[in-house]
């Protein structure tokens, strides 16, 4: 079961790490100062959450790898973050739509994982849930403001929703890892999370006067097997450069 638990912890940790890194790219470039600070704050929460669960992944694996080893010394194929998290920031509407989709997903996922039989995963979920509630609130507010805003903001946000929609199925993919861990009462059933996600997201999109995409084919999946879009490699090249070039570097 350790292999499955390691995989599962990587999914949680890598999604937070990669999304956190993406958001950090906005630091100093936010549209207004308050929003710049907000995105840096979300990023900080996510990277903190990633450290917590990647440290656990290292323990479960039992090869002595730390959270830093896992973050900085794996290649793209070994990452298990959802494809949506690695998508480029695009314009502000793309960033907020990506944030909204993942925050709502994380919220319901962590709500379920609070009851996990694995006490470290349960503690991680309990702690992260409170932070993610702020992320849901913040990104939902922006969806409403942008969607129901000007013609320009509406069309940019609708484009973002349409473009990112192909990565939604990937969030809810399950394989033998889920099967085993659900049986053990450790993992959450993503079919149930999907129902809650759909209700919440559709409600906000409607209020934001945005259309819900009706595409059901051409959905991209593969993150569970480490099959990523090309964007992940570029993130890793930047994120991992220093610890790879100078392995003993210390602050």
């Amino acid at each position: 079961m350790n292999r499955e638990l390691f995989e599962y912890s990587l999914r949680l940790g890598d999604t937070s790490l990669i999304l956190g890194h993406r958001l950090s790219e906005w630091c100093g470039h936010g549209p207004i100062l308050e929003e710049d600070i907000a995105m840096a704050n979300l990023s900080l929460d996510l990277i903190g959450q990633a450290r917590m669960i990647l440290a656990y992944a290292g323990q479960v694996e039992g090869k002595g790898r730390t959270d830093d080893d896992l973050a900085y010394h794996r290649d793209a194929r070994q990452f298990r973050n959802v494809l949506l998290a690695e998508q480029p920031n695009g314009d502000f509407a793309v960033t907020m739509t990506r944030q909204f989709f993942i925050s709502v997903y994380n919220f319901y996922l962590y709500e379920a994982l609070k009851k996990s039989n694995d006490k470290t995963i349960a503690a991680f979920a309990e702690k992260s849930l409170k932070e993610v509630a702020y992320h849901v609130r913040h990104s939902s507010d922006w969806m409403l403001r942008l969607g129901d805003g000007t013609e320009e903001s509406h069309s940019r946000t609708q484009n973002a929703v349409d473009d990112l929609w192909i990565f939604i199925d990937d969030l809810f993919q399950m394989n033998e890892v889920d099967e085993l861990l659900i049986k053990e009462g450790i993992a959450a059933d993503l079919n149930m999370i999907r129902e809650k996600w759909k209700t919440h997201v559709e409600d906000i999109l409607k209020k934001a006067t945005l259309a819900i995409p009706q595409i059901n084919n051409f959905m991209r999946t593969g993150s569970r097997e480490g099959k990523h879009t090309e964007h992940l490699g570029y993130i890793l090249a930047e994120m991992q450069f220093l610890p790879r070039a100078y392995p003993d570097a210390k602050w």
Partner: protein
Amino acid sequence: MKVTSISKEEIWQILKQVKDPEVPVLDIEELGVLRDVSFDDDKIIITITPTYSGCPAMNAIEQEIKSRLAENGIENFSIKTIFSPAWTTDWMNDEAKQKLKDYGITPPSRSAGQHLNSLLERKSEPVQCPFCNSTDTKLTSAFGSTACKALHFCNHCHQPFEEFKCH
């Protein structure tokens, strides 16, 4: 057999000298970060919990704990970080809240559970200005200079101010 000559209470008093580096009016007990002091034979175990997962002040707090204990000649200790129960501002007592207000930061005013629901339902509660006590204020940003604070503006006394968020 325990050979430690220092009591749990004495250690607790030493640790109370450790302040939050970002909000120096609060010590780590008032902040709710210090959870427990116990003994494992003659080794002292100090249990702490982070405020927010990514709070950069945690490293500074750990360093400060180490130096305070070292100053008092205590070497045989370890610091244990726990995540459950998750840190909450519900642990902050009235005295600590008053200190925050006197320092110019609006203290958390509601229970964390209530607050979580209002976040999801997208409701906003009035936040009191720490300077003039008016509730005619508006939220500037839910995220402030540190993870635990939000930014507001008081329409009455025209002062921007920070709020320690309910969490």
